[in-house]
């Protein structure tokens, strides 16, 4: 039979091992960074705002509602120009036709005058590119921009917040990502 102090030594060894494991994890967290499925931008929306998205000058992308499905259980239902109420619309989406840029979608988030929170946003969808995309690629861009509206930053890999639409390692061209959880 082992002497009584052997159990204590074992306990100490176990605790030491546990402490070492925790410290190693801590160091990894400090120097490697935490892997996460998303990166947040610098601000948030206040809870009281309803993120209605209003659409202007659109020939009508049918991908808007399914794109919003990626982020909301209750899909965003974009309202048309004639239904705009400035007091309740905080996000406006626009179609532009700009061949002089290398982006197919852009989002501008505006903080309020007094607080650290976002209070308004504009989403620009570049029809110059989107017009030539297949439907899922178009949805991929729109869902990506809605991700920015919600305060998400870019990520590499097979995720909606991948910053490239086409090309090696791109969101749509390489990974066929066009919704948050589904690929083709």
């Amino acid at each position, binding site marked *: 039979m082992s002497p009584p102090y052997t159990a204590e030594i074992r306990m100490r060894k176990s605790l030491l091992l546990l402490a070492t494991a925790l410290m190693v994890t801590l160091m990894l967290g400090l120097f490697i960074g935490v892997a996460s499925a998303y990166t947040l931008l610098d601000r948030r929306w206040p809870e009281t705002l309803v993120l209605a998205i209003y659409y202007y000058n659109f020939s009508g992308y049918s991908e808007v509602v399914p794109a919003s499905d990626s982020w909301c259980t209750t899909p965003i239902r974009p309202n048309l120009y004639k239904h705009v109420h400035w007091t309740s619309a905080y996000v406006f989406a626009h179609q532009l036709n700009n061949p002089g840029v290398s982006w*197919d979608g852009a989002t501008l988030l505006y903080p309020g005058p007094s607080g650290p929170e976002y209070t308004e946003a504009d989403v620009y969808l570049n029809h110059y590119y989107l017009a030539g995309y297949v439907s899922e690629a178009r949805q991929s861009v729109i869902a990506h921009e809605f991700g920015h509206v919600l305060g998400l930053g870019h990520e590499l890999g097979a995720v909606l917040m991948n910053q490239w639409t086409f090309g090696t390692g791109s969101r749509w061209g390489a990974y066929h990502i066009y919704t948050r959880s589904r690929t083709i």
Partner: protein
Amino acid sequence: MKKLILILSVAAVALMLVLASGHLANRSSPNSNVTIVEVSWARGYNSLKELATSPYTNAIVRGILIDAKSYREKPQEPTRGPGLIFTDYLLEVQLVVKGSLKVSDVITIHQTGGAVDGETMIVRDDPPLRVGDTLILFLHEYESGKYYIEAGPQGRFAIQNGLAYSLGEVYEPAEAMTRPFKTYGQSETQFINSIISILKQE
């Protein structure tokens, strides 16, 4: 034993703090007069070879930015903000690596972002160019004499003291979007020769 428990407690608390801070990793807060633009790039490249040989890369040049003019483009329909800002830079070509441009040609480089009426607009991945910068640019001609940088941040390399730098090294607050072909302080001559070598292989 008490010491061990203390160490464990401190380590556990520190670990939780690290995990929490990592999960909520905020990007640097912009100045209130600075509007950050988040974009989706139409095309991205995985190597210098892909970028250099892309059919969208009409020209590869070394040049110096000699002038810039920013302006706001406000859509006709209502916007929540005042509209997008763009800047047209004039680039004097010093060396042609690809394309039909000639040395001393002056071309327009169109970039999203700039400063108008006290507001500065910056594309998060692709901060504004600066007059006086010497650059190696991979360009797409979208209109006669007018170019944009192919793939935004990926297609621009700054030259400083004879060394070529990709974005993320010299243009704060750029995100490191040039992966996986970062060029941090490579000899300019070596860098240009590597592009020429790639093009010769095609």
